[in-house]
Each structure stands twice: as C-alpha cells, then as structure tokens.
C-alpha cells in the first residue's frame, strides 16, 4: 500500500504532495476527534439516565435530566441574569468602541498613537489580577451585588480589545465617501452613522458577538461581585451545582451545561453562516 503510494508520488511532478495531503487529512481528523470527545460526553450524559463519567452510547435516551433542571430557579433565572449582564455589557462595549474607533481611525490627532499603544497594552493586562482591588473598590463604593456596577465593569474589561478590533475594521472603510460628506457640511457623527457604519456592520457584528461570547463565559467577575443567588448568571450558578443535590449529579449538570451553552453556540453558528466565519475575525487580529 505504502509502496504504491510512494511509487505514484515519485511519478508526479511535485513529489511528496500526495503523501503530505494524506498525512494532513489524517492529522486533522485525529485532532478533530480528540477535540469532540469531551463535547460528546456532555450531550450523551444529558440524555442518559444516571450516567457515569465515561463517554458511552446512552442505554436509554430520556429528557429526564432536562425536565429536572428546566425551572425558574435552576435554569431560567440564571440564564436571564446572564443575558442582562453579558448583553448589557456587550451593548455598552460596542457603542463605546464604535465611538472611540471613529476619531482614532479618521483623524490624525496627536494623542492617537499613545492612546492606541495604551489600549493595546491594556488588552494584555490580566484582568484576573485586578479582581482583588476591584472587589475592594466595589465594597467602598457600595456596589457589591449591584447588577449595574458589575455590567459596567464587565463592559470595561471587553473595551480595549473591542476598540482595537473596531479601529482595524473601520480602517478598512475607504475615507473618500466621508470626505465628500464633510465638504457638504455633515458632522463627524453624521458621517459615522450614515456612511461608515452601514459599510462596516459585519465588523461591528463580529466585535459584538465576540464580546458577548467572552462575557457569557466569564466566571470570576460575577463570582466576586454578585453574591445573591438571585442575581447570579449561569456561569456562576453552574459552579454551585455541586452542593445543591448532595452528590454531583452529572446528568443534570450536563443538561444544564447544554442549556447554558446554547446561546453562544447559536451565535457562533450565526457568525459563521452570515459573516464568513470567525476567520474574518482572525483577519482583524493581525494588528
């Protein structure tokens, strides 16, 4: 088998291409399998009655696990809280980032470069490390358990990267059209709203979806700043799952994980269908 492949290879003009194609395909399939195993576990465990930890074909499929977690306290409220927090924060981040990106992209201002360098620098700061002083700050400002305060802080954590991405997307919109509008007396904000944004909505959507996905999975911030169970989003309540039913019920945990993951999976599918995939986002990362 290998010999024939080898023989065929030698006879082609580009030696090694066929072999490398086979190797590349095999490698990717292998990586794909390794990556999908944990996901399959959650799906299987969620529909199996009393599953162990290992991946196995469910002996009897049932929606018992879903039935027992789908109630206000366990699932609906935490998910709704998450939508308020992450959705609100995403909205604030995107609006602020669009506004900030405009002068950075369109005007040559003295502080552009230092500002961009600061933004780039703060994308790198480990937000985790800021959580101790942020907790202190929130205690002193009496903002612990404040959804508004937590939302604003979450929005801020997403802001540096969002500004950076948004500016890169905005740089891709040619400036000629706007210059014509400026000559006609339109203000910068008018030009941004009527000319630039309509041309870059896919970029705005990528930034929004990316920000939301990141904040939806964020655990540490709400874990520290929201103490009442009634206010906590799914990212935190999933963690308290363990104690609630005595021992760990992996079936329910899995069912909850599926419910909690659904919104971001749906957004991801939307992103890849409508916007040419996350690969568009990858392009914006080059800097």
């Amino acid at each position, binding site marked *: 088998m290998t010999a024939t492949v080898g023989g065929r290879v030698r006879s082609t003009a580009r030696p090694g291409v066929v072999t490398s194609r086979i190797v590349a395909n095999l490698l990717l399939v292998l990586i794909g399998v390794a*990556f999908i195993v944990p996901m399959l576990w959650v799906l299987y465990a969620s529909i199996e009655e009393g599953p162990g930890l290992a991946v196995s074909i469910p002996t009897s499929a049932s929606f018992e696990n879903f039935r027992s977690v789908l109630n206000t306290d366990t699932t609906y409220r935490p998910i709704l809280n998450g939508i308020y927090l992450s959705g609100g924060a995403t909205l604030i981040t995107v609006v602020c980032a669009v506004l900030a990106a405009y*002068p950075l992209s369109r005007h040559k201002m003295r502080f552009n470069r230092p500002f*961009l360098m600061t933004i780039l620098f703060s994308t*790198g700061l480990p*937000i985790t490390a*800021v959580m101790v002083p942020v907790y202190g700050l929130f205690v002193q400002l009496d903002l612990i358990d404040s959804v508004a305060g937590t939302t604003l802080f979450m929005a801020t954590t997403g802001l540096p990267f969002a500004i950076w991405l948004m500016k890169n997307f905005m*740089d891709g919109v040619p400036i000629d059209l706007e210059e014509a509008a400026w000559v006609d007396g339109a203000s910068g904000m008018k030009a941004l709203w009527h000319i630039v944004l309509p041309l870059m909505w896919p970029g705005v959507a990528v930034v929004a979806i990316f920000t939301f996905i990141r904040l939806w999975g964020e655990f540490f911030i709400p874990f520290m700043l929201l103490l009442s169970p009634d206010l906590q989003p799914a990212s935190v309540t999933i963690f308290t799952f363990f104690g609630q039913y005595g021992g760990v019920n992996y079936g329910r945990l899995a069912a909850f994980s599926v419910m909690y993951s659904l919104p971001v999976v749906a957004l991801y599918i939307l992103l890849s269908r409508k916007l040419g995939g*996350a690969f568009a986002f990858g392009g914006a990362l080059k*800097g």
Partner: protein
Amino acid sequence: MLRRATRGLPLVPSVGLLLVFLAGPILYCFYAAFTDMALTGSGATGNEFVGFDNFAKAFSEPAFANAVFLTLLFTLFSAVLGQNILGMIIAFSMRRTNKIVRAVVGSIVIGAWVLPEIVAAYMWTAVLGDEGTLNRVLEFLRIPGQDWLYSNPILAVSIANVWRGTAFSMLVYSAALSEIPSEIEEAAEVDGATGWWRVWHVTLPMIRRSIMTNLMLITLQTLAVFGLIYAMVGEGGASGKAQTLPIYMYEQAFKFSQIGYGTAVALILLLVGAIFSLIYMRLLNPGKEAT
C-alpha cells in the same frame, strides 16, 4: 477650531470607563499592596502602611514560589507549546486537506473556544477523572489509569486549556498563511526547496509578526486563567499542585482575608503581565504600519 476640539469627544465614554474601572483599580492596587488591609484580624480596623512587607513575605513564602513555578509551567505547556504549536499544525494542515474535513474540524476546534469556561472545566473533569473516558481507554489498552486531577493536576488543567485556547492560534495562523502570496512558495518549490526546509526558511519567517502577536495574546490570556483551574481543581487536596498565581492570590485575599497581601500578589501578576505586554508590543510595533 471648535471642530478640532470636538473631534476627541467620541472618546469620552471609553476613556471614562477605562479610567474608573481599569486605571482606578490598578492605582488602588499600588496603594493596598503596601498596607496590611484585611477583612478580619488586626488589619480590619485600620489600614497601616507596611512598606514592602507584603512583597518580602511573598518572596520568602514557599507557597508563593510554588505558585510562580506552576504558573510558568502552565503557561509554557498550555500556551507557548500547546496552543501555539497545535494551532500552527492545524493551520498548516488545513492548506492541504479537503474542504469538508477542514470545515468540520475547524468548527469543532472553534466550538471548544466558544463554550463557556466552566463548561469546559466540567467536560475535562469528566474525561480526566477517576472513572473518566481517558482511564476507560487506558483500561482497554491494558495500561493502568489514574485520577489525573489528583496525580497530575497541572497537566490536567494544561490539557483543558490547550483544548479551549487552540482555536485562537489556529485563527491567527490561518489568517497569516492565507496572506502569503502563493508565487513565493511556488518559487521556493521550483528552486528545489521542499517540505520542512521550505516551512522553516520561507513560510515561518514570513509569518513572524503573527507568531509574535499570537504568543503575546495567548501568554497573557493564560497568565490570567482562573475559572478553569478553580473549577477543575478547586481548593481541595490537589489544589497545591495546580495553584497558579491567580488561584494563590484569590486564596490569600478572600479565603484568608489578607487583602493587603493578596493585592501585593495581584500587583506582581500585573507587573509580569505588563512586562510581557511591553516586550511583545515592541515586537509588534504597530505604529509603523498603522496610520
């Protein structure tokens, strides 16, 4: 003139948020790290300045040295080696595979990135736990298994972090590779440069900037990983073996109520992050191309 002055106005909301919620806490960090602030005990009543005591304590504490070592190990294994190299292998392979394999595997890998941190933690607890999938596979192969979360927690969390973060490197490298003009590689091929030689001497130097950007971002992301490790290993018996700096900081500040000392650890973590950020910013040097 008025127009010039109002040009910067759209920056105000962003600057305001960043000053209050990012610069503010960082400055507060510089203050609290030099006090004996605590939630309970003597420091709870008044915060006294203690100079560099907190830092002296950190550098003499074996648990702190342990946390630094584990953070380095975690970052090296899961980011610099794991995510970076695996992401690069996937991106390179994708150029030679058929469309369907590429689309399916790409979606799976990005799917792992999209899923929430804590869900990822539970998935890997399930795979690497005592009765987990990995042990079943090993059992089938007649290799004795073990509870990886207890025997080698730093490896377990590194694997989980590679799984979660590889998509990012894959996207960065796919974007970088797609921009290399095919003539250059074809020319190298015509000149007789094949396989590894071509990758090493032609392709990699061309995506050097992307490699640096990527290394910066994933190292900084990995330094800050908290939820994944906290959920997988928690504060249980194995926690000391996977206690990276963020976990150590959390434990000192909130479990032992030593806010001052915890903040000092946070400040060290921030400074390490800042140094990395500055080094890679120099390598990236965005001012040259931008504007």
